[in-house]
């Protein structure tokens, strides 16, 4: 079949900017960094536009490059757990008042405290609804590793969330 689909850069930006931005934000916990990542990713897309074969390929490519750039940004920043908590508490990250559910806001904040590999797996699973196999392809990791990260990440996040709920109720 003839290659009918032609990539339109502006349309791709319109369609995927919130996905790219959200992935960057949840991986780094920093709005400014997330926007930088989004810009870098789309500029790289512009350079590789000729190699994009379809709409789904564009989506896959954007996810993969965004996750890779986010990991690079984290490595460059060399964020330690305590520094990240300070940033979150000082409101550089996701703002609680913008969320509908206080628990939801707290879950986002707790996500940022997980190890990077677990965070990546959970974000792709629960933000993007990807299967473990799709996550593995995006992160270029073995499926078994992804499943392990999902399981451990979910368990750790749930434990932290339940501890938070207990403290919240005790406080009230």
């Amino acid at each position: 079949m003839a290659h009918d689909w032609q990539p339109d850069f502006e349309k791709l930006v319109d369609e995927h900017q919130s996905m790219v931005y959200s992935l960057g934000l949840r991986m780094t916990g920093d709005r400014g960094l997330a926007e930088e990542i989004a810009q870098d990713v789309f500029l790289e897309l512009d350079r590789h536009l000729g190699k994009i074969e379809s709409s789904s390929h564009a989506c896959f490519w954007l996810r993969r490059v965004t996750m890779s750039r986010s990991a690079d940004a984290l490595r460059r920043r060399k964020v330690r757990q305590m520094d990240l908590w300070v940033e979150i508490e000082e409101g550089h990250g996701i703002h609680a008042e913008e969320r509908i559910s206080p628990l939801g806001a707290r879950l986002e904040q707790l996500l940022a405290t997980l190890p990077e590999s677990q965070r990546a797996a959970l974000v792709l699973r629960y933000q993007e609804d990807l299967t473990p196999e799709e996550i593995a392809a995006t992160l270029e990791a073995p499926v078994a590793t992804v499943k392990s990260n999902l399981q451990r990440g979910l368990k750790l996040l749930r434990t932290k969330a339940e501890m938070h709920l207990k403290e919240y109720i005790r406080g009230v």
Partner: protein
Amino acid sequence: MGFDSEEDFELELHQAFERQPAPPGLKHRLMEKRQACRSRQSFVLWQRLAASLVLAAMLGGAVEWRRQEERRKGEAARQQVLTALRITGHALDRMNRQLAEHDRANQE
């Protein structure tokens, strides 16, 4: 105290991790950056083209100079050979005249 089930917790996660809208103006800033990148690339391309032309002209000039130089050296060598032949010719003429005079003297 906690979530009733794994499913409840996963539902909370799905809701909590909905995509956030991109900040206002992100697309506009991105398009401006893209335009700036393209202008820079175009400028670099013209610069490279100009540099290539200058290099080609310099190489061409060097080749032509070498050719002229070779021709000049060849001409100089030719002149030297001709001079040597003329000198030899003069010397042979003088020798012939001396021999002729000697022969005339002997006959007398």
